[in-house]
């Protein structure tokens, strides 16, 4: 069930120049949140911002009743959020959207490919897959080292591979040029910049690998009512907020082929 709730910020970490993370405590009974689902955050005291901002859930601790968000500062809304401090409240509508498929058989092999802020939802996903005994290879990329906001957090959940376009961290080149990318997997998940996801999807499709992508579009309602955030799927326009943000690439041929 979706709810509107005021969370309390209990931790804030700067993650390099462009990113920060917030840990939010519910204080009561937090609704279950599946990997790949997102929240809509109310931005207060910022006159240029009216609409909520959709932000993917980075991590969840159901027992502690906390969730964390990894946020890239890209505009007025996220800049205002970056000024919040421990003890401040944040109003969320959550959990929203259709997340990643995680019911893989134990022993399956999964590749998680993240770029930039798209790394965020992959931690929650990697944790859930690890709990199901899925072997994860986690491939994270960015233009340069400072644009890969987190990586050590992933170490307990799989084999970590890094790439940067300039070679400042890990393998030099795009994620699809990393040797780990060429191996075979039962499932490929990806979230990041659109050109990266399209390259991952095209390659997965060519190799016959099952693949899910997490899309990001400008949103208003977040619940599939306003139809502002649509993407052009093989079945016509579908809401990224409700039918996605995670889509199986078998429904997105038009999207990844162009």
């Amino acid at each position: 069930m979706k709810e509107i709730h005021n969370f309390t910020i209990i931790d804030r970490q700067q993650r390099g120049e462009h990113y920060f993370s917030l840990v939010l405590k519910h204080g009561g009974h937090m609704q279950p949140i599946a990997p790949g689902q997102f929240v809509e955050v109310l931005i207060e005291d910022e006159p240029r911002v009216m609409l909520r901002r959709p932000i993917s859930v980075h991590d969840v601790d159901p027992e502690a009743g906390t969730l964390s968000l990894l946020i890239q500062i890209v505009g007025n809304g996220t800049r205002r959020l970056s000024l919040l401090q421990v003890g401040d409240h944040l109003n969320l509508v959550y959990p929203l959207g259709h997340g990643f498929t995680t019911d893989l058989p134990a022993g399956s092999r999964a590749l998680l490919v993240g770029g930039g802020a798209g790394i965020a939802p992959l931690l929650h996903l990697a944790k859930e897959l690890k709990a199901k005994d899925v072997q994860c290879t986690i491939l994270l990329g960015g233009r340069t080292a400072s644009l890969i906001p987190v990586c050590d957090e992933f170490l307990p959940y799989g084999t970590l591979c890094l790439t940067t376009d300039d070679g400042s961290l890990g393998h030099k080149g795009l994620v699809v040029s990393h040797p780990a990318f060429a191996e075979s997997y039962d499932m490929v998940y990806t979230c990041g910049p659109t050109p990266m996801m399209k390259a991952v999807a095209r390659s997965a499709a060519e190799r016959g690998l099952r693949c899910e992508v997490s899309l990001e579009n400008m949103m208003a309602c977040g619940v599939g009512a306003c139809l502002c955030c649509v993407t052009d799927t093989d079945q016509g326009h579908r809401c990224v907020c409700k039918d996605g943000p995670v889509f199986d690439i078998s429904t997105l041929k038009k999207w990844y082929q162009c």
Partner: protein
Amino acid sequence: MLNVNIHNLKLKNPVMTASGTFGYGEEFADFVDLERLGGFIVKGTTGTHREGNPYPRMAETPSGMLNAVGLQNGGVEKFCSEVYHRIKHLDTNIIVNVSGSSIEEYCSVAEQIDALDKIPAIELNISCPNVKKGGMGFGTNPDMAAQVVSEVRKVYHKTLIVKLTPNVTSIVDIAKAVEGAGADSVSLINTLLGMAIDVERQRPYLSTITGGLSGPAVKPVAVRMVWQVAHAVQIPVIGLGGISTAADALEFLMAGAKAIQVGTANFVDPAVTMKIIDGLEDYCNRHGIKDINDIIGII
């Protein structure tokens, strides 16, 4: 205390939701008690399935947003055979927003909705700014507006609300024309035609270049138009445009609206309609108002 009537419709309170901002109601069921609403207007329904305009369809602007969804919907047959059966049990006024590209299409949709027992009214959308054919084209000319309303009137027998566009020189002339053609009520305003440009990319934010402006930015324009129309027609006026608090709703009521619709504010706070109803009750209690009709049109 909050009961109002729009023609034959009896509303528990004046608070409804605006077409295109509330889906089919069910999208908001986790956040609001749908049966507490005076009513809700389901999204624009056309004769056949429509895909709407290409993405991007939305841009945030100061105290508002532009949209260019372009009437994406599954078509009237899908509404009647699927959606209607999921929502018809709700004890509130479910009103279908009817759109089209031709008079024939408006009439065909209206006729099919007329057959649905639990839909007591339609809102005829002659004001959508985001479609190439029809839509606002019917709502900007008094003769065209009267023509489509009188043709729909022949096939539709329940409460006929006509939604007006603000993108005209005189909204009063259009309101009088549709009243004369048999409308039972008018709702206003639809979105204001607007435009925004991304200067970094040097191109418009919307795929359609222009779109409809909604949100608090349009409220003073909407209040003014409701006041003008309420003084010029005998049929009840439904006010909308940027309402996000009970005080906003009260402005429209005092300006002459019998009921109001909440639109864009649903995106910011999905439970805002409940707060507005609470706020109206509180206002009546604080001011010793026994019947909200006593303050309607006092300006």
